[in-house]
């Protein structure tokens, strides 16, 4: 395991904007958790109801049969299996159907050749689901197929689906956001944060497509910040924490590697996630992350171009730290020898 920690935690005085964003996200998290609790519970209850989900699977199977164009092959095949009477597949397809807004919108006018009781109950439940969704803050603030207006391209950044989601994103924000703020200033950092978030939303909409499952979280914006930092400090040694899975001396410590390593690591992870995940299934918006990285890259290149046109101050020299130094993997007497 390897994890960038750069210069460690930078305090409120040196990175006020970063900490303000973290605080704002926390407020929004508390608000959405409190207001969305009932709706969230209701939605989870519905999604756990095997009868409802399998009925939805059967209805969706018939819908896919009639509207095959534009749907991936595996979904069509799954629909065919459901129509051939495979109940387990009906539940799987029913879960996947939750993301298809066009299908859900057609629920009121749809006809179904099959169990009419199940169909009636499903229609009633779907109406309940839509009602609960309209009360849920992830739907009112997140980017979803119901509402793709520009305000949602920003508001979704501040909403998180849970505590772990929030902590993960904020950890990276305080590491990279604070380091970038220390380098370029608070206002610039905030602009990069918002621009990257909006660009990430656009990329997600373009590459994956918005569904009824809302896009929420600051990860796209944070990825933009991380990318900009890494590009600006491309060859500079950055501190990484490593752990080689053994609780022995030397198997855990710090290593200095160029900043670009972090960028490459994240790019690989997101590219693998993008190529390795079905758009209809995945829970992580890899395309939003890639969009954030693209935004960071574009901003970095723009700044580089502007600096070429209007050179300002001399770039700061890189600190005198050699790359690829592991400590305390090697005992101190070894790396003091030539000092």
């Amino acid at each position: 395991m390897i994890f960038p920690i750069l210069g460690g935690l930078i305090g409120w005085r040196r990175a006020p904007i970063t900490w303000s964003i973290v605080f704002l996200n926390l407020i929004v998290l508390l608000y959405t958790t409190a207001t969305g609790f009932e709706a969230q519970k209701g939605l989870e209850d519905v999604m756990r109801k095997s009868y409802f989900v399998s009925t939805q699977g059967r209805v969706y199977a018939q819908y896919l049969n009639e509207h095959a164009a534009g749907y991936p092959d595996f979904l069509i095949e799954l629909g065919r299996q459901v129509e051939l009477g495979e109940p387990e597949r009906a539940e799987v397809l029913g879960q996947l159907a939750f993301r298809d807004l066009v299908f859900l919108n057609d629920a009121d006018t749809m006809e179904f050749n099959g169990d009419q009781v199940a169909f009636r109950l499903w229609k009633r439940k779907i109406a309940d689901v839509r009602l609960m969704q309209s009360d849920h803050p992830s739907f009112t603030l997140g980017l979803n197929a119901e509402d793709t207006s520009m305000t949602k391209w920003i508001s979704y950044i501040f909403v998180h689906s849970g505590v772990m989601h929030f902590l993960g994103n904020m950890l990276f924000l305080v590491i990279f956001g604070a380091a970038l703020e220390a380098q370029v200033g608070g206002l610039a950092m905030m602009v990069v944060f918002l621009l990257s978030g909006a660009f990430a939303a656009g990329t997600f909409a373009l590459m994956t497509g918005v569904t009824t499952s809302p896009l929420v979280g600051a990860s796209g914006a944070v990825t933009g910040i991380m990318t900009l930092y890494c590009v600006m400090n491309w060859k500079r040694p950055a501190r990484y924490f490593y752990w080689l899975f053994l609780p022995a001396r030397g198997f855990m410590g710090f290593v200095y590697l160029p900043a670009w390593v972090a960028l490459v690591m994240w790019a690989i992870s997101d590219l693998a996630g993008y190529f390795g995940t079905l758009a209809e299934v995945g829970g992580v918006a890899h395309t939003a992350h890639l969009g954030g990285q693209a935004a960071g890259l574009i901003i970095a290149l723009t700044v580089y171009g502007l600096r070429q046109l209007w050179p300002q101050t001399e770039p700061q020299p890189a600190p005198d730290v050699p790359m690829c130094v592991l400590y305390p993997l090697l005992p101190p007497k070894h790396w003091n020898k030539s000092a």
Partner: protein
Amino acid sequence: MVTPDWSAPPRPPKINFVAQESTAANSLLARPLDRLAAVIVDLFVVLAPLYILLSAPLKKWMTASFLMGSEAEFASTIAGMVGIAVGLIVVYQTFMHYFFAATVGKFLFDLRVVAMFPNERVTCWDCFIRAWAWVGEVLCLGLPMLAVFSNNKRRPLHDRMCDTIVISRNAGGVLAPALWEQTVVRGMFGFLIVGILVIALVEVRTALEKIKSDTAFAALIDRETGACEVVSRNINEDGEVKEHERLELAMTLYAAGLADRSCLEAEVEREVAMQTPVGAVTYLAQAFVYADEAEVSNSYLDEVCESAPGTVECAMSEVVSKWSDEDWEAVEDSLTRAPRGSGYLEVWGIRHFMKQARYDKALALLDNLAVHKPLSDFSMVQRVKALFNSYRAPEAEAALMTAVSALPDNESKDLSAWVCAQQLQSGCAALETSACGQLNPADGEKIGEIDFEMSNEALARVLAIECQADGKMDYKSFGEAVNSEDWRMFFQANVKRQSDDKNASAHLFSQLILSPDAPELLKVEAARRWAQFADRKQTEELFQQWRDIPSKEAWVKTGNFLFKRYTEMGDHKLALKVARYLMNDQALAPQALAALANMQESKDTGKRAPASIKRKKGSEEE
């Protein structure tokens, strides 16, 4: 603009990546932990990113095949992913060892792979073979790699195969393992191999047993066709199978307790698969499938009569609705009005009439069921019970003889035990009857030989042992030996009765009658025993409990015991009161009727109670 505080460490020595002339002779051996750390760096830092990128499309394919339930595709993608992992490792190790004598991880820990013998060099082919051997060792859970602790030169199999050795270029290297180290590791290795062999043997044995049990007990659902196997066994597929015929049969078998809910579900799914149009019987079956979800089940029941009013299915849906409301009159009304011939409605009718102790009606429906071959076992059992409970002993005996020869062993034994236990309640002379003869109840003379899970048989055996013990039965040891709480209470009550502690005995029998899980026949037996010694006050208590007994069959039998007790006590008023209740349900036993007639003759009791007296839970005395 503020620059971050880098707090750089003091400059360490510069690592020279250019290979020096290190040989096996002039170097220390690599420390095992350094080798492990180098492997971790190679796998998780260098190769993992490459692997997740290369295998990403396969991962996508794997997810899709998993969702579609395609086992072949799923297995092939797994194989593909393993192949990519192995290929990457082999190519990486071969390339790095041949050109640099070390992988990236080994560079970081200053380790080198060199030839074992002087004047030899490691060839590309050696590196290739070494990499494959390394992968092989990993597939053996890395156990062969433990040789780094036991081999004199710390060379596992892959080093020995290719005449290589891993050395350390810094002072962190180690010498050959000490003797104790070698002994410990070899011992551990031996234990591991023995452990693995034992686990493997146990697993093989378990698997064989599982295969055996799978073969012995045919699975309920036919895995190939997805249909219910018990239906497939009983349907006549020679002729043309009508629409919904299988589902109707499944409903009938379900009603008779010969199929479970999953069977109904499988038949409904089968109809979906066969594109059979949804009919009233489908909705009816769905109402049973979703019986645990009241809203869903009720919606289906409503739909049955909406889509097909006046049909058997509609009548059945009414029966089910009223049954759950415990509106027995309405159930009977629906059953009487409904058309005949479906099978399942008749079975529900039989169940209803047996439950309500209306054995004459149950027998009439049983006659109609004769055409349904799959229900012959069910019919025979119910016929014996109905005849016996309606005091038609000779006919019941004859029906029992027929049933015993036709039923499977366990069912015939249970039915014989049911009859025998009740015959023994009338006296030990019943040991000579054919029912008890079928059972040989005296066989289980020892407590350990009685299976108390089979409550009918257990009761018959206990009663038979009592007959043989002639009042000197050791209830205490029986009570200590049984696991069932209800049976233990039964024996304890008998111990108290033996020691003439009537109050304690009555209390325990009363508890047993109220126990929700106690077997029906055991409750009746408890009531019989209590009635035998109950004084006036206790009889009053028993009378109160009797009125609240939920099972009609147990209520009838207990009522007759109570009547007998009142008659014995000379309390004709209360005896008549019990008789009125029983007569109201046409449930007074012939012996009790005779006793009542004698009572009427000897003493003029005046007016008879009107026949409309109803037994109602908690109602005041008339």
